[in-house]
């Protein structure tokens, strides 16, 4: 291959999809499924988000005309690390998304109603299938790394955990190109899954991720999301506690510094009785960072005995920072417990004075209190190395707010 094409395909039009199919074949999705998905992307409206006052980003005007949707080679997802080798040795399937799993994709967790999920499906150019067999108890975390370099990444991740199994999956996104992907999680009865998604894109990149989980009877999903990088991060997470006794925990944190903008939405659907959920979100803004969090708890009519809580706390550390916090509840059943609470504000003067009265200078006290603010959320991420990495990044944002 002597020379690269002098004109890279750009943008997300039908023409670029034609080019992708010609150069790389349809991969795990049929050509018709991809074209249908592209049509849906073009027709569906952006759901929910209306630009807030002074927002830099308007999703309805998202311009993707300059992105490079694919390049020779694939999304550099390296699945061959030691932890994964050990897991494979114990019967876990960890493989590139390919023809072997078409039956499950989108069948259990449908994302066709979403504009950007449809885009991700249309241009899917790499992804991972993880299948944890029933009964397996896995201590070491399975790692999935997506790196968007040279071209945009449209990763499609499907995680299926069998009855009574227990495992941890860590999904990392890095690089400096556009990312638009889907993660689907299916938990069989009594399965226990810890799922971490850590996004550390360069400050010029944009990222739109749609994640959905379906929880079987008495299963437990502990999901933790850290949106740390990118210029624009749109993150959508929905879990459905689909059967009796299912338990969904979500922890999310983000810290917008400089000109970052994070738009996070989470929804927990209690679709059956005696299901339980906690959602804990902590965010901060500094510099000119902007954030938006919409959190919904939906309890359907027959989901008696549901117990749901949603807690969102946001800290504003500069005049220019702005965070919108929108907790919501849709409850259609009696005999449920549902709690939601939200705070948005600056560091409390009482806390500052208390720390200063112990000789701690104001700047150091602010730093200590701001990092302490995130700690209850950081503590819910599994593994000390992961937690330390997050703490280091949060501290760096405090020290270099612009």
């Amino acid at each position: 291959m002597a020379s690269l094409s002098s004109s890279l395909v750009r943008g997300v039009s039908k023409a670029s999809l034609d080019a992708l199919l010609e150069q790389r074949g349809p991969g795990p999705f049929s050509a018709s499924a991809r074209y249908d998905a592209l049509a849906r992307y073009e027709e569906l409206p952006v759901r929910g988000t209306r630009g807030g006052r002074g927002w830099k980003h308007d999703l309805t005007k998202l311009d993707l005309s300059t992105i490079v949707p694919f390049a020779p080679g694939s999304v550099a997802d390296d699945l061959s690390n030691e932890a994964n080798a050990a897991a494979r040795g114990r019967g876990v399937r960890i493989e590139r998304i390919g023809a072997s799993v078409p039956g499950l994709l989108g069948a259990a967790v449908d994302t066709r109603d979403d504009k950007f999920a449809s885009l991700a499906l249309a241009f899917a150019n790499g992804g991972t299938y993880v299948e944890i067999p029933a009964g397996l108890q896995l201590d070491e975390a399975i790692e999935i790394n997506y790196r968007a370099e040279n071209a945009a990444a449209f990763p499609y991740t499907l995680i299926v955990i069998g009855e009574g199994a227990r495992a941890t999956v860590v999904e990392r996104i890095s690089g400096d190109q556009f990312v638009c992907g889907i993660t689907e999680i299916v938990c069989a009865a009594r399965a226990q899954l810890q799922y971490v998604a850590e996004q550390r894109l360069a400050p010029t990149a944009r990222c739109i991720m749609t994640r959905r989980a379906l929880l079987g009877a008495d299963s437990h999903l502990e999901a933790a999301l850290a949106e740390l990088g990118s210029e624009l991060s749109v993150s959508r997470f929905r879990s459905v506690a689909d059967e009796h006794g299912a338990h969904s925990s979500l922890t999310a944190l983000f810290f917008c510094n400089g000109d970052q903008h994070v738009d996070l939405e989470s929804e927990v659907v209690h679709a059956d009785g005696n299901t339980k959920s906690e959602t804990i979100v902590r965010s901060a803004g500094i510099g000119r960072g902007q954030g938006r969090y919409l959190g919904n708890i939906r309890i359907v009519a027959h989901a008696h005995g549901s117990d749901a809580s949603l807690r969102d706390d946001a800290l504003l550390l500069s005049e220019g920072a702005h965070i919108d916090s929108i907790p919501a509840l849709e409850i259609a059943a009696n005999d449920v417990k549902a709690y939601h609470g939200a705070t948005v504000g600056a560091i409390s003067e009482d806390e500052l004075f208390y720390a200063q009265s112990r000789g701690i200078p104001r700047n150091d006290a602010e730093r200590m209190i701001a990092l302490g603010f995130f700690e209850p959320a950081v503590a819910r991420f599994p593994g000390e190395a992961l937690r330390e990495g997050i703490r280091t990044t949060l501290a760096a944002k405090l020290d270099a707010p612009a």
Partner: protein
Amino acid sequence: MAEQSLKVSRLHASVGENEILKGIDLEVSQGSVHALMGPNGSGKSTLAFSLAGHPSYRVTSGSVTLDGEELLELSPDKRAKLGLFLSFQYPAAIPGVSVANFIRTARQSLHPGDLPPAKFRKLIFEQLDELDMDPAFLGRYVNDGFSGGEKKRLEMLQLAMLAPKYAILDETDSGLDVDALKAVGNSVNALRASEDGKSIGFLIITHYPRILQYITADHVHIMMDGRIVKSGGPELANVIEREGYDKIREEVAGGVA
């Protein structure tokens, strides 16, 4: 020659438009214990916060010196560095910051580099033991979910660990049960009996005389309506115990008329 005292001279302070302190004169020399008593609303906590430099309390005139250095222009952390400590009546919670981390950071700010980690650990475990506190405290977040007694014990732990020159205890006995009160008393007495702590000057602010059954005061002052109206020895506390503040109020009113 520099004075070795915390000296308050003709101090006037306001909260918003209201003048609360109407000319306070008080001198706590090193190693002595002064008790400041008074009914609710007399301005006792305002005095404590004004000395510590809380931004909501505006000093309008007067001076405060610590070992000869003027405090009033200094930020709260600089006052602490000169040697002032305030035990809060309602200590703030700082979620996410562990007790160990907080005290270590404070100690490092106040006395940089003087205690290597091993010595610090030894000292803090000794103090936890003195205060009958579970070492698990060190990992808990500062005052987060603490009972009243636990909060006061943490104030005493900080008093013992931060080696101040002058300590103001603001209503340390309010809302405490007998055990917690004894713990506070023991803590202060142990500190005063120690080599390092014997020169600490104490200003104990209290509404009830109870704490003074555990800590012997050298001087007792009564504060009313923003002024110190009577000063005396420890027996003055017994008068309050027996007769409340009304008698003194009458006495003072009689004097003014």
